[in-house]
């Protein structure tokens, strides 16, 4: 019962902040709402007894990546109204297309959920809550080793690329 209430309250916050991110005129405010959104998502992870994921969400997204967004937004002058530098018609069509795609996707997920009910969630929650980090680590190094290594390679490539872009002559 308490879990359901917490879930709905958190979901309201997440969706509300997400709407505010795209509707706010002031870009810095939009970035701040994005932080609040990420924090609410982290709280949702805690509710699902995924503490490790929650902490990483706060550390990487809320505390790391969005700080860089904030830097960019603060240092780039965005004072002029956005209508000046875009063709509204074209962007509208792309927007409609993307929204339709997301809508179809959401419909498919909901339809699939209605047809095939989910398995028993929370059967191992007590064990998960105790050994969250160990479990994630074991999974990453056994079942999901290849994706994990690929992601590491990708990050390494991005890092090297950033260094080469920043330092023209090495």
């Amino acid at each position, binding site marked *: 019962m308490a879990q359901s209430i917490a879930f709905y309250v958190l979901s309201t916050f997440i969706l509300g902040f997400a709407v505010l991110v795209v509707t706010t005129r002031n870009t*810095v405010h939009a970035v*701040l709402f994005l932080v609040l959104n990420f924090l609410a998502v982290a709280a949702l992870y805690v509710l699902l007894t995924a*503490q490790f994921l929650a902490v990483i969400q706060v550390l990487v997204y*809320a*505390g790391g990546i969005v*700080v860089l967004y904030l830097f960019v937004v*603060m240092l780039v002058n965005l004072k002029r109204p956005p209508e000046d530098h875009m063709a509204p018609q074209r962007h509208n069509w792309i927007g409609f297309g993307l929204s339709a795609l997301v809508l179809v996707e959401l419909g498919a997920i909901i339809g699939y959920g209605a047809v095939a009910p989910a398995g028993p969630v929370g059967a191992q929650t007590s064990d998960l809550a105790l050994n*969250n980090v160990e479990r994630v680590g074991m999974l990453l190094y056994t079942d999901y080793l290849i994706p994990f290594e690929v992601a590491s390679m990708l990050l390494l490539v991005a890092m090297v690329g950033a260094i080469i872009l920043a330092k023209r002559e090495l």
Partner: protein
Amino acid sequence: MIDTYLIPLVKILFVLNATLIGVTYMVLLERKVIAWVQVRLGPMRVGPYGILQPIADAVKLILKEDITPTRADKWVFTAAPIIVMVPALITFAVIPFGPVVNLFGRQVPLYITDVNVGLLYIVSVASIGVYGIILGGWASNSKFPLLASLRASAQLISYEVAVTMTLVSMIMTAGTLSMVKIVESQYDQHLWFIFVQPVAFVLFFIGGLAETNRAPFDMAEAEQELTGGFHTEYSGMRFALFFLAEYANMIVVSSVATTLFLGGWLAPFPNVGWLSFLGYVPSWMWFLLKTFAFLYVFLWVRATLPRYRYDQLMRLGWKVLIPIAIANVVVTGIVKVLF
């Protein structure tokens, strides 16, 4: 009912108030220590030996006019000091002040909670505090605070990398992320981790100085270059909140260092027979003593060392501390595998 709600609430209230009182008295301690280093007396007028000075300061700051600049972004300007203060305070949720003790016939742990991601929780909560500094400078709508906040946040982000890498090697040594278990594993291994990981200790301490914006890394408030710092436009209690948060962060870093490297609440050499009389001192007392020693070193460093130049600070962070921290992780891993 009592165990799940009442006792944690009482503990939270106690820890919050103790922290806030500790923070206000840190200001007095700092003034006294620096005065002592400079062969002065320090505050002497308010109460015997100036002991009521923090209360007088607090009353003064609350009564001061609270100015918001006209061109400032009001909401963000108001939120920034709060965003700095809150992470500093909620970190204390996972810091263990002592083991489970018998209090009035009830088993009470001397920590608010013990989560299995304790150390990561502290790192991630600390990373939120950066926002307060960036936003405080930005919302003031003034050049110097903006420059200062950019400097401060770049510094915090750079040193966060080094500190987090250092913590990785500590996690490998302890084999756990839970703050309580880290202390217990120091008891089991018969060694404080400062003797196992001396390099990590030095890195963590330097990183801690930089992360709390303390001298010699207090670039965020270089008066002669920035007319103050990111808090130039703040006045009254909001200005004070930035400083209280700085002192609260100092206490956080000291407590974490105590837990990680100095055996937390353990008495020195808990496994040596003839030193067992040290166990008569209560465990929380040991914790407070060690934390206090760290805080004293913070003040001592401030009284001794001059401020770094900004490029030197960045070079130290990226070209010295981070490589050493990464090498430390690698060496720890090799030693772990071999022995």
